């Protein structure tokens, strides 16, 4: 009970940011909320936010676990590029490959990449930022090598469903996020695994002496993060029906880290919030869509982004809030 109260209070700030953005749209851009039905599917800005934001949400779910162990995975963007390249090559060599085989191979590669990161961090004891940097800088080269330094069109109906299909009038990628979130809640949050992860992030030595196999936990979270990154890469490739190793997933790791941190999981590790990561990703995508739809000059659009990020981070900081309120209190006294 106490736990859930605590975690919900840390969600207030990203939710406030999201509310503020929606309020802005309600006042200045009311058509933002209109939803219509096109070809039997829901169609509108809000749907786009979920669909385009699904990639960051998937990444954030994986990244959340890694950050909870006190690590970070910089390679998710390049894992996206590698899986995109793998799936493109599979469909290029045989356009009739079954979706199951294509997903299995592509996610297998992503899993290997994730496990490699995990092994470097857990068993070789390399700093996570360095261990994952290795794949971050080499991965894009690997992806380019796989596709022969070319963009490859991926036009397969079954595969296209991942990024552009609809299930019960909702974008499939949105449904996928709900499924993954449910899976994570049941498989991690509601089991002792969550406790093991938090213990590892809080104090690895203490966790180790309490009998937590923190090395295995670390390996697993990087593996999951890699798998989720692979899935995100597949959704993006499917969405644009094209695999471009030099562009796919570029700077995505930063979006994912931002979503997780804004969502209430500290970079120092420990307590984590899966729903917070989702809300963080939602906040980021809502901002992007708002900027497009309100018509902010492209050259200026990084500014509102930066302002929002700084505001949410400051509001999240206890110290800043205390200083701010004490400043206000002093003024009132005077």
């Amino acid at each position, binding site marked *: 009970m106490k736990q859930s109260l605590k975690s919900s209070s840390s969600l207030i700030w990203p939710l406030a940011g999201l509310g503020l953005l929606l309020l802005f749209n309600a006042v200045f851009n009311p*058509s*933002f909320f*209109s939803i219509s039905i*096109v*070809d039997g599917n829901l*169609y*509108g*800005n809000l749907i*786009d936010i979920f669909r*385009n934001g699904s990639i960051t949400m998937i990444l954030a779910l994986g990244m959340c676990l890694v950050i909870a162990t006190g690590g970070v995975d910089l390679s998710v963007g390049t894992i996206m590029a590698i899986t995109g390249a793998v799936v493109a090559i599979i469909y290029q060599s045989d356009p009739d490959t079954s979706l199951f085989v294509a997903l299995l191979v592509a996610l297998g590669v992503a899993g290997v990449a994730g496990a490699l990161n995990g092994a*470097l961090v857990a068993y*070789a*004891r*390399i700093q996570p930022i*360095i*261990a994952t*940097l*290795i794949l971050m*800088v*080499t991965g*894009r080269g690997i992806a*380019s090598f796989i596709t022969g*330094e*070319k*963009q490859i*069109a991926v036009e397969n109906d079954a595969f296209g469903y991942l990024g*552009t299909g609809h299930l019960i009038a909702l974008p499939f990628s949105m449904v996928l996020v709900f499924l993954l979130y449910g899976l994570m809640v049941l498989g991690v949050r509601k089991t002792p695994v969550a406790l093991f992860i938090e213990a590892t992030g809080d104090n690895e030595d203490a966790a180790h002496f309490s009998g937590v196999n923190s090395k295995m936990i670390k390996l697993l979270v990087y593996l999951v993060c890699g798998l989720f990154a692979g899935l995100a890469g597949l959704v*993006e490739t499917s*969405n*644009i*029906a*094209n695999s*471009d190793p*030099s*562009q796919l997933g*570029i700077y995505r790791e930063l979006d994912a880290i931002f979503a997780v941190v804004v969502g209430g999981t500290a970079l120092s590790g420990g307590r984590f919030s899966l729903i917070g990561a989702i809300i963080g990703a939602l906040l980021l995508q809502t901002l*992007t*869509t708002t900027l*497009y*739809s309100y*018509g902010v000059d*492209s*050259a200026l*659009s990084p500014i509102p982004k930066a302002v929002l990020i700084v505001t949410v981070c400051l509001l999240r900081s206890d110290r800043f809030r205390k200083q701010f309120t004490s400043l206000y209190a002093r003024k009132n006294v005077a």
Partner: protein
Amino acid sequence: MFPDVLKKIPLTFLIITGLFLSGCGGGSDDSSADSDTLTIGFIQTGAESDWRKAHTVSVKEEAEKRGYNLKFADGQGKPENQIKAFSSFVVQRVDAIILAPIVETGWETALRKAKAAGIPVLILDRTVDVSDDSLFATYVGADTYQEGIQAAEWVVKETGGKANIVELQGTPGSSPAINRLKSFKSVIDQHPGLKIIDSQSGDFRRANGKQVMEAMLKKHGPENIDLVYAHNDDMALGAIQAIEEAGLKPAVYIKLISIDAVRAAFEAMVDGKLNCVVECNPLQGPLAFDLLEKILAGETVAKDNRVKDEVFEMAHAAEDIKTRAY
């Protein structure tokens, strides 16, 4: 003994990482050269598109054909990599540098160093923004300003001077984005019936082009958008998908024109989904080396040299695609 080995592993990995990083930073091929062949340093932006690859190949092939020793440095999309490679070429005292800058600004200091060392610099493709023109020997590029004019002229002809236009810009601050924006607007502004109702950046990327177009369709309503002008093909291809997913026919319900003319754009034209492309010619190697030879021989050359760009329309795309080299 076993723990000792384990302890050494992190160090080994750090060294390996260091090697990777330094490899990426400098990124120049080292091939031994005879003393009499001239060495040219070529700094490319990256391998971000098929266009860029054709551009790289054009320079590399021309260098080989004329018997130069070409040192190739890949900026991998990061201006700081390019500046590092540039400095290292100056230190190596290459005979000339061909620079295809990622961004226009920030080259002043680097170019001054090259000038002081007496190394002529040929700027290729995108321009540089410097206070003193004498800092580089000459410029060779596709005329990104002219391309915007060619695109606008097609729009005037195609729409009869009456249309609401949505523009998908390239990366803000890059010279093709600036030129294609300004030149297009300069022609459109002369026709009161033509209006650019919105202009947003899709960063030259397909996914972003799609996302921006989705937002535009919702903001203005598809019935109020007659034409999309995209600063490159990839963004137009993304916009085509957004239009299709809104249940509309691209190139029919909303017309599209883009710049670059890569193969995928030709394929879209053959499929009847894209109306027109303006070429941005990547085969700049031959002209660049013609000029470079003159410069190295001490002749003076014009400061601004352009390769020729053509306009391709949907109607002839099926024949044109057969003649394309990239």
